[in-house]
Structures are given as C-alpha cells and as structure tokens.
C-alpha cells in the first residue's frame, strides 16, 4: 500500500460525529472507487489490520506475531480456547494494553492506541465480557459516562436522551433509558453496552464472549442486532469459544491457539470440525458417544425442596425429582434461577427451608443436620459450580487439593498425622489417570489451567466411587480438549451405575450428556424433556414460557 493512500484514508477517518458521518455515507461509493483506483491490489479497505503484534506478560508470550485483517462491513469471528490470547489481542486494539511490537492500522491508516480514549476516537467500541456498567446508575447515565461533553450534565442529559432515542429506532435496540441497570435482565444490560459504544460513534464493534450470560433466545436476538449493524455498514469483531455461534453469524473467522493466529477462513468454506481441530491442534470428538442409559433404582430423591438465599428470597420453590442409578439428570436454566442454591442444599452446604432429600432411600436432613462431610461418607460426591471458591484452595499444592474433604479418611492418615507420602503417590495416580498437566503434584494449584484445575476436582470426587455424583458447571472456563475428556468421564460414571445430577448453563452440554432434562426457571422446575428435545423448546422453557412451543415462538 502506498503512503499517500494512508493519508487519504486519514482525512476520511477523522469523521466520527453524527452529521459528518452522514456526509461520509453519501460519499461512500466515491471513496470506494477512489481506493481501488489508487491501489489496484486491494479489494476494499480493511477496517482493522494488525501486523506482527507481539505481547508478553512476564514469561508468558500471550500474542505471538499476530496478523489479522478484518474487512469493512463484515462480522469477523475470533475463536480459540481459554488463554489462547483472544482477549489480550482485543485489549491491545482497545488501548487497554500496548503491544510490545507490531503495527495497527484502522481504515488503512497506521495508528497508535495508547488508551481506550484513542480507540473510542477512532470509532472502536468494545462490549466487554463482564459488563462495564455502573449497576446503580440509570441506562442514560451509563451511556453518558465519559462522553458527557460539558462540565454540567443537565445539557448532556437532554442530548443523550435524544441521541439514544435515535439510536434505538435506527437499530431496534429498545431499552428504557431511565431504568436502573441492576434491575434489567442481562440481555438488556448487554444492549446498553452496545448502545454505549454506538453513542460514542463506534464504527467497529468488538464483542468479547457476548453470549456467555444469555439464554439461547437472547443470543439469537443479539445475532439479529449484529446482522442489522452490519447492514448499516458497521464492522463487528466477535470473540467466542462457541463454534456454533461462529457458524451462525460470522462472515470470516480467525482461529487462535496458544497465542498464535493459526488460520483465517471464510465461514462458508469451513466446518465446525475443521475449526475445532484448528483450535485444539488435534482431532476432537464434538459429539459425545454414549450408549443407552440403563436406569436402576432411585438413588437420589428430592421432595418438595424449598430453599431461600441469604436475603430471604425464595430461590428454590417446591422442587421434586428423582435420579436413578445409571442415568444422568441434567438441570438446564439460565444462571441465577435457583440451580446453585438447589445443589448447595442437596450437598448439605446450604440449609433448606422445607422438603426432604433422600440418599439411597435415607433422608439426609436437608433442613437441619445435613453436613457435607457426612454426606461424602455416605457416598454423595459433589463437584461444586465454582471451583475457585468452593472446589479448591488455590494456594495449596495439587496433592493437598486432591484429598480435600476426604483428608480424614484412613488411607490418607497415619495416626494423628497426615500420610504425606501416601497422599502424594495417590495424587500422582490421579494425575496419570486424568491426564492432569503439568504432571507435578507439588505445584501450586493456582498455576494449573482452568481445565486442569477442574480435572483435579473431578478426580478427587469421582475416585471416591460415590453412589451419587452432583456436578455443577463441569466445563465452565474449560477448553475444548478438556471438555471432551470431562464429558467422557461423566458418561463413564453413569455407565458404572452412578446416579449423576448435572447442572449446567451450557445447553449443548446438557443436551449431549443428560438422559433426562429438567428446566429450572425462577426457582421451579418448569418442564421435563428427553435428550432429543430441541434447543428452541428448551430455550423457551428457560425463558419461562411454558406449554408447547410454536414455530414462531421458537425463534
């Protein structure tokens, strides 16, 4: 590309306020023609072009010589496992970090982005994975924050209100501007994040794992919004680890693995299998292979369970179900609909208000004396949802975590002392069997990756040979390779005749593992379906819409 081309692009790109943008749109065709006349090699200008980006955090080389080109007016997906460097790369683009080396071009013009302000001025907007919203502010205040204009905010409020109304109409992003953020559902909160970016004149929108917190229906709605933004000429970069989303919505896709950009494909010319292989670096089985379930006796029985949270709000409302030996019962639902409180109550961590839970036919005193230590002894193993806060002590060595909760068992003690050698050799066996990497039982647990940490918890609970296994979010924050392994182990537990209760917000996971699916909404079980239930059907139940789904409602 020639230098004078860059300068020409610069003149065009200084435009960011609304009316200048309108002029630009009018002149857009000419601009295109002019570009191709001056530079015959290029089809259209890239919205973003990254060349040779490197970034290290201490010894960790998070981005290695990354090249990426995003066409204007397209949706470009970036996939990769956790820790592949996707978020780091986007943080560099948004000015959160500075690259150690490499070049960034926005609309063909080389730029330096030192702060988020620079990025905003260049028309780059970001929707963060964890929303950057002030929860007790109104929608309007959140949108205004940092873009207020004058020192006094009364004028800005009026201006922002008008501008928001305009944006809402243009992009069908309806939201009550005076609502308090914490009272809005997450789907709407995300919409506020998008509005924030658009309000600042974003032409390029980066979305970091946007669907993690959404129901399938909300995710579909988000994709429709993205399509609409694309039609209006915006460029969208979508970061995700969910292959299905990439296939559904993107035009092009780039794959990252271990800090490197390993491939870029046209979405229409690739497949889920190819992308998964590129991500992991080897062939992955995406479908879990499993045989027929052979359910036996009822091992876990929950009867009219009601649980309140610490604020006294009823989170689990009169829930009853059974789990039989040799079957996996999946609890689906959007996070925060009582699943967490329910499994905590069953596992004896949280006291229930009313109801009974029977383990192997014997009540466990779920409203009173239930105690996780006794429950473990009686054969109930629990893999908590949040491994960092409940499953592991991150500061401990791996071998210490691998006996946590069973540390009083005969095999680990020597009179009043811990049998250190026994514990370590036991830990080494588990490391071997569960392929925990790095295979070092003396390493601090915090230094293992998410997937390996999860395997430490699973190994600890599964190797106790429980009759009932409760698993919460087994693959949250776990990469594709480890997911495959974990799923296989859960199926093996079932085939070994264990009763498995699986709670997950990942609908795909529930559908591929569970033999029966219960959907929770607002603390109640609103439906039971077989493993062949469609995603639309389950999605409706998860959103609290009961009854038989119709075709249009399933959208």
């Amino acid at each position, binding site marked *: 590309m020639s230098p004078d081309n860059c300068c020409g692009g610069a003149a065009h790109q200084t435009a960011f306020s609304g009316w200048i943008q309108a002029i630009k749109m009018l002149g857009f065709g000419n601009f295109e023609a002019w570009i191709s006349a001056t530079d015959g090699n290029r089809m259209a200008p890239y919205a973003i072009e990254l060349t040779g980006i490197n970034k290290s*955090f201490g010894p960790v080389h998070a981005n290695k010589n990354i090249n990426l080109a995003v066409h204007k007016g397209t949706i470009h997906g970036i996939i990769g496992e956790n820790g592949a460097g996707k*978020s*780091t790369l986007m*943080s560099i683009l*948004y000015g*959160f970090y500075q690259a150690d080396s490499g070049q960034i071009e926005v609309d063909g013009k080389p730029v330096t982005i030192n*702060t*988020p*302000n620079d*990025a*905003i001025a260049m028309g780059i907007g*970001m929707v*963060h994975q*964890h929303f*950057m*919203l*002030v*929860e*007790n*502010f109104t929608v309007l*205040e*959140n949108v*205004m*924050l*940092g*873009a*207020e204009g*004058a*020192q*006094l*905010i*009364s004028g*800005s409020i009026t201006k922002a209100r008008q501008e928001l109304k305009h944006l809402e109409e243009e992009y069908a992003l309806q939201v009550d501007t005076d609502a308090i953020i914490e009272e809005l559902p997450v789907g709407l909160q995300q919409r506020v994040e998008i509005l*924030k970016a658009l309000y600042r004149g974003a032409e390029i929108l980066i979305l970091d794992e946007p669907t993690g917190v959404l129901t399938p229906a909300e995710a579909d709605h988000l994709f429709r919004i993205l399509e609409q933004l694309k039609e209006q000429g915006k460029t969208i970069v979508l970061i995700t680890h969910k292959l299905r989303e990439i296939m559904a919505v993107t035009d092009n896709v780039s794959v990252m693995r271990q800090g490197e950009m390993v491939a870029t494909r046209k979405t229409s010319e690739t497949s889920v299998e190819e992308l998964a292989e590129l991500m992991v670096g080897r062939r992955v089985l995406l479908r879990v292979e499993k045989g027929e379930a052979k359910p036996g006796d009822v091992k876990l029985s929950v009867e009219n369970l009601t649980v309140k949270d610490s604020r006294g709000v009823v989170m689990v409302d009169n829930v009853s179900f059974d789990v039989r030996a040799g079957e996996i019962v999946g609890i689906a639902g959007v996070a925060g609909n009582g699943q967490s409180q329910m499994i905590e109550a069953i596992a004896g961590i949280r006291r229930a208000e009313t109801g009974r839970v029977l383990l192997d036919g014997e009540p466990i005193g779920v409203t009173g004396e239930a105690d996780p230590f006794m429950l473990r002894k009686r054969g109930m193993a629990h893999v908590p949802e949040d491994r960092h806060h409940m499953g592991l002590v991150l500061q401990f060595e791996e071998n210490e975590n691998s006996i946590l909760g069973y540390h009083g068992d005969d095999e680990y003690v020597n009179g009043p002392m811990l049998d250190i050698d026994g514990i370590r050799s036991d830990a080494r066996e588990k490391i071997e069997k569960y392929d925990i990497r790095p295979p070092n039982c003396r390493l601090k647990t915090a230094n293992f990756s998410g997937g390996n940490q999860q395997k430490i918890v699973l190994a600890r609970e599964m190797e106790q040979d429980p009759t009932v296994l409760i698993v919460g979010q087994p693959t949250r924050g776990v990469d594709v390779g480890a997911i495959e392994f974990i799923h296989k182990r859960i199926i093996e537990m079932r085939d070994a005749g264990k009763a498995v209760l699986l709670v997950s917000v990942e609908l795909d996971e529930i559908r591929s593992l569970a033999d029966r699916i219960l959907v929770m909404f607002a603390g109640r079980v609103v439906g039971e379906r077989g493993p062949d239930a469609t995603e639309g059907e389950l999605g409706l139940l998860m959103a609290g819409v009961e009854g038989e789904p119709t075709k249009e409602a399933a959208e």
Partner: protein
Amino acid sequence: MGIFETLILILDSTVRLAIPLMFAALAGLYSERSGIFDIGLEGKMLAAAFAGAAAAAVYGSAWIGLFFAIVVSTFLALVHGFASITHRGNQIVSGVAINFIAAGTTIILGQAWFRQGGRTPALSAEGSRFTAIELPFAEAVRDVPVLGLVYSELISGHSILVYLAFAAVPFTWWVLFRTRFGLRLRAVGENPGAVDTAGISVTWLRYRAVMCTGILCGFAGAYLAVAQNAGFVKDMTAGKGFIALAALIFAKWKPVPVMFACLLFGFLDAVAIRFAGIDIGLFEVPPQFMQSLPYILTVVLLAGFIGKAIPPKAGGQPYVKER
C-alpha cells in the same frame, strides 16, 4: 430561663458542635464515593487544627491559618492517595497510619515551636480568629417573640465557617449529582472498570476526590482551632473524625442526610454538656453517662437501626486492570 430559651441555647450549641462533623463527614463523602475508604479523617482534622492554629498565631491572621490548615490536610490526603491509589495499599492501614502520625507530630512540633506543652499560643490578637458575625438587624429583632430569638441567637452570631459548612451541603449535592465530575466520581466508586473503559483515568479521578477530602478536612480542623477554640490543644479532635465517619455511614453517603446526621450527633453532644449531672429524682445521672451518650448512640445506630447501609461497591479495593 424558660424552656424555649433553653432549647434555643441547646440548638445554638448543637450547630457549633455539628460544624466540624459536617465538614469532616462531607470530606469523607468525596473520598468514599470515589471508592477510597478514609479512616484518617481524624488525623487530617487534627493536623489541620494544629497547622491552622500555629499559622494563625504566627501570622496573626485567621485566613492564613485556614490556608495552612487546608495545605497540611490536603498533603496528608495525598499521602493517603499515594498509598492507596498509586501503590494500591490497604486503605485502612494507610488511614490508621495517618491518624498516628498526626497525633504524634502535632504534639512534638507544638512543643518544639511554642514550648507550651504541645499547645499553640492562645489566639487573642484581633483578626487571628474567626469571630461571630452579627447578621443585619439581629439586635433589632431580638425582642420579637419566638422568631426574634431564633434569628438573633440561632441564625445570627456564628463565624463565617459555620455558614460555609451549611453552604457546603447543597454545594456537595450539586457537585455530586449535577456535574460531570460528580457523575464520574459516583461511577468510579461503584465500578472503576466502567470508568476506565469509558476512557477516563481512574487514578486522576480518585486523586481529585481525595484532594476534595483534604480541603474539607482542612476546614474542619481550622474551625476547631481557629474559630470554636482559640488555639490548638493536643488531641483536640477527640474522636470527631470517627463520629463523622459514623454520620457518613448513617447518612448512607448522601450529602443532605449527612447534614442531619451531624446535627443529631451535635445535638446529643450539646445535651450532654448542658445536662452534665442531671437529677432525675431517684438518683443523679452521672455526667460520664451523658458524655458517653453520643458514642452509645453511634454504636446502636450503626448496629442496625438505620436499615441496610450499602457502601460504594468498589470501596476499599484498589483498582487493578483485569486481563
């Protein structure tokens, strides 16, 4: 003296006693709203009182005293900022350290400079103290029933700092809820990430907040040593910084309720002074009990009579950019 006159006198001393609390609580409000807990209000106030009294004594001017009070208090506020914003230290530890430094330094410097056992010289010269301002017609309307006394005793006859303290309440409200700075200040105390990603410097915003705290603590200290009293006495803040903190929590970090909370604490103090040893027929209530009343009330109120006080969500946590 009738009940009405007594009441007016108690309310009058309520106002006087509430002023340092109001300055200090509003000072804490700026800092805590920005997410920096400040347990060092007490120390800043004490250091400001000393600096104000010393400067007023040396230069013979109350205004120069106020100026030095503000400078010293702001300096200590910046030290707190440096520890807790720039170096992400523990805000409680830093605040406690400032309290200790102020308690020790004021006595040592006072003895070294003035040799009066840690006191500063009494401010007797003309203009070296903030004196009472007689509002217009205060004497003329004194004999008008009820309102005359209210105007001449309660409203008129305070020093300029008293009026400034009351003006600072609506001003703080206006800053917090009507200006860009206020919007950002409230935001940074709730979610600094939102502020950072919006392209605003969290560090600079929080530094400005602690500077506001320093300035207002300077006023509080100057009021104690240069207006209410005529000079500095060691430990003269006597826990007022902590009471102010209690009032701030009691008022749920809102400016106007802060004023009422401080007036309530001031009122209790005034009652305790007025009725130090009151005979209630059966026995004499010991003066110590009356004096401890404000503190007992603080404990009772904070123990849960105020409903849930939700502090700014990011309070006490240093801001670290996440990956």
